[in-house]
């Protein structure tokens, strides 16, 4: 089972482990760049991490239209929705 909530929670954990973003700073409308200090180079690592979550190949270029945490959740959800892959972990 994968709900948007579950994806969101995984993202919050990932942000802390990977990008030193304390969980208290993450909220759905937070801008990845301005609010959370995630830059274009981080997007490469983020794509790799999302790949682990979704089991789908995600190109860093796919992040061009993603500005907020919610965008990220929606993108991951869409990938998972298309393919019935369980969220690992």
């Amino acid at each position, binding site marked *: 089972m994968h709900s948007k909530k579950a994806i969101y929670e995984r993202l919050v954990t990932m942000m802390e482990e990977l990008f030193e973003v304390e969980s208290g700073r993450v909220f759905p409308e937070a801008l990845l760049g301005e609010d959370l200090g995630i830059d274009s*180079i981080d997007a490469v*690592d983020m794509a790799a991490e999302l790949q682990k979550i979704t089991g789908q190949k995600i190109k860093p270029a796919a992040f061009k239209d993603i500005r907020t945490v919610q965008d990220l959740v929606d993108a991951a959800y869409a990938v998972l929705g298309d393919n019935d892959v369980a969220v690992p972990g």
Partner: protein
Amino acid sequence: MNKTGKNSLHEMASNVGEDAPLFSLKVVLTGLCFALFGLIGLLLSVTVFPLFYLLPIGAQRRKRWSRAVLNKVFPAYIRFIGLCGIVKVEGMECDDLQAGGRLIVANHPSLLDVIYLMAVVKNANCLVKKSLFVNPFMAGTVRAAGYIRNDSETLLQECAASLAAGDNLIVFPEGTRTDPAKPFRFLRGAANIALEARSDVWPVTIRCQPARLMKRQPWYKMSKSTIQVSLQAHAPISVVPFLESELPRPRRSRQFTRDMEAFYAAQ
């Protein structure tokens, strides 16, 4: 004051000295010197650089030759603006920076910093903002010398390739001129390049007194006195601890960046 007895880089930025009147010889000369710089860029772009493109020398040699030209032109330009009483530069003999394949970072107090560094550093490559690639005075130069666009999608790979080819790569980790009102805040590009290229970082500090040609200071807000600039090369910051770290890469680049910020804050 820091432990070497010098004012910190930020303390220096608040010493702006006495204004030269707007309608003074000083401001006129400053304007002429900047115009001259544009003119030199334009002239090279229609003479020497096109010639390099025409010769069957390959892109690599064309870039090196173009950089060699700039490495001669910039010291002459610096001497000239020194004679005009605009800027006097010391510390132009940074032998440590000549080895090739060095990743050089510097603070960025003033408009002319990259000219000082390129006058010193042979075969210097540089990260350049995209607007210069379409600036009529600069485009010919930045293209001939093969500088790297800072918005390139393959930025890290291009930088690593440049260092591996023996270029000295100059990066201003602040991404823009220093904001004297704020503590050092570096972008992570420099650290990420170091990690990608497995390259130590060679810090240079640039001091300008009085603090002019800085961020939010238009060129015509000049000081009465000549700006004294000094360049100082420091021992390298090793990349090894960050390569060996168990942390995921984004966190290693953050730690490396914080260390660089701390180094500059202590200068």
